[in-house]
């Protein structure tokens, strides 16, 4: 049976950039079955905020899960006020993570993240590095980068871009990839839809595989409400709506139909 009522203990919860927080939770049941690319639903105490907040898993360490989230509204504002020792209700890890099985030792993987899509790349960088894979991690932000040190520590060959030019390369991650002439055997990405689309089209032109983590506004986060969907074209060419929370959030870039209504 799946569980949505796991009790996590807050070990730390701190700001790591403007309106970006990092929370570390102790919850053995969730951490032991967590996979890179999955998310958890966090349930707030204020009952006027009905829906759970789905947050991607950034780092898995024994019984601990680290999540990085943006404070974008009243719900995440409440989340940012949790302190050491507080208890927080959460679900078991949801959705399907990245598939690393096709990557072989000695190959190169490129991980591309944008904004609040960067956190899942930390665990991914670490796992691929541990497999003996060269990991090029290209991350983009509007203004203020975060998670740079942990990514370097996890084994990333790190490239940073910002829209504002405040830090790193001035421009998009795709501009940076092209300028640096970076390439890889396979690609993994998480970030805003325009970035995912541009990157996917670029990678598919080079006839390489790309896995992308899609984001969509969720209701239940466990597959009941069908609020979060994206259009997928299967190998036979048939288009269908898939649930981002249950069938994703990670999909093959080649199967996503971007212009579907």
């Amino acid at each position, binding site marked *: 049976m799946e*569980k949505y009522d796991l009790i996590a203990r807050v070990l730390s919860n701190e700001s790591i950039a403007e309106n970006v927080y990092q929370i570390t939770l102790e919850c053995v049941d969730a951490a032991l079955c967590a996979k890179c690319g999955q998310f958890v639903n966090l349930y707030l105490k204020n009952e006027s905020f009905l*829906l759970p907040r789905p947050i991607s898993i950034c780092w898995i360490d024994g019984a601990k899960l680290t999540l990085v989230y943006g404070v974008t509204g009243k719900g995440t504002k409440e989340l940012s006020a949790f302190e050491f020792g507080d208890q927080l209700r959460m679900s078991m890890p949801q959705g399907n993570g990245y598939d690393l099985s096709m990557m072989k030792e000695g190959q190169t993987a490129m991980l591309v993240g944008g904004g609040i899509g960067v956190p899942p790349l930390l665990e991914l960088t670490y796992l691929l590095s541990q497999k003996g894979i060269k990991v090029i991690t290209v991350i983009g932000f509007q203004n203020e980068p975060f998670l740079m040190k942990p990514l370097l520590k996890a084994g990333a060959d790190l490239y940073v871009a910002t829209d504002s030019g405040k830090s790193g390369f001035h421009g998009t991650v795709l501009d940076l990839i092209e300028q640096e002439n970076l390439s890889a055997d396979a690609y993994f990405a998480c970030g805003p839809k325009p970035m995912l689309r541009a990157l996917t089209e670029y990678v598919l032109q080079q006839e390489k595989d790309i896995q992308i983590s899609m984001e969509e506004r969720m209701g239940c986060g466990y597959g009941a409400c069908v609020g979060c969907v994206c259009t997928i074209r299967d190998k036979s060419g048939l288009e269908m709506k898939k649930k981002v929370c249950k069938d994703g959030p990670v999909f093959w870039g080649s199967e996503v139909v971007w212009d579907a209504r």
Partner: protein
Amino acid sequence: MQDSTLKQSDTENLNLNVTIAGVKWKNPITTASGTFSAKESSAFYDLSKLGAVTTKGVSNVPWTGNPTPRIAETYGGMLNAVGLQNPGVESFITEEIPYIRQYETNLIANVAGHTLEEYCHTVKRLEDTDVDMLEINISCPNVKEGGIGFGTNAKMAAEVTKKVRGITKKPVIIKLTPNVTNISEIAKAVEAEGADAISLINTLLGMRIDVRRAKTVLANRTGGLSGPAIKPIAIRMVYEVRKVVSIPIIGLGGIMNGEDVAEFLMAGANAVAIGTAALIRPTAPIEILEELKNYMREMGYHSIKEIQNAFCD
């Protein structure tokens, strides 16, 4: 120790059975269409514990639904504009019905359509299946043609009911919309044409604007408001409709706990459906059932009828 002994003996005296349009339910709780997905929900609890399950709207052919974003949270509620995405009645018959039939509960198929013909096609296809009851959705605010169009006009609501009643032997529940001026008039019209029961309410048409982006939050612009924010409206409508019809009413709209169920029963409902609560707590339908039992023990009620009869107006 004493408490648990007392509860144990009380449990034996609780009679939660209800009969809705001739179908016996072991308790008065079902799921609300649109918030229930058999495979996903059964990952969290045993569906056999419910009086019935009500499936998502099923149409004659697969529907792709509306563009995203389809969900917006509101204070004490949520808006959805899913648009009845579903794989169509053939898939429903081969996939959904056998899956639910593993469980010992009644199966209510919610039927959606753009036209009278579409409703009739789906109802006919379901006639030879072992679906226990049909809930006809003439109240979805997110479907441009059909849907709510049938539910806001007494004549059209009556016409759908008459057509469907004429082609099926299964009990027919008509699900009404609250987006009308006179709910009683529509309830009477569908009862007169042979509806066996009424579900009310469906969601209220609502809208949210993101004032930082100066855009609507939902791609569809408007959506259906559900959750505890709408419960007083649902209670009022059940109360009004109870006065004018004699057929059973399945009440729904923002039920979050056992006492909310009691409130619907006192207003005149015979059974209830749990919707938005199950999106927040997947096990809400069975938790609310337990809360209802606790409420009955605490208040000394032994049957659902007793709760209904206790209401003094």
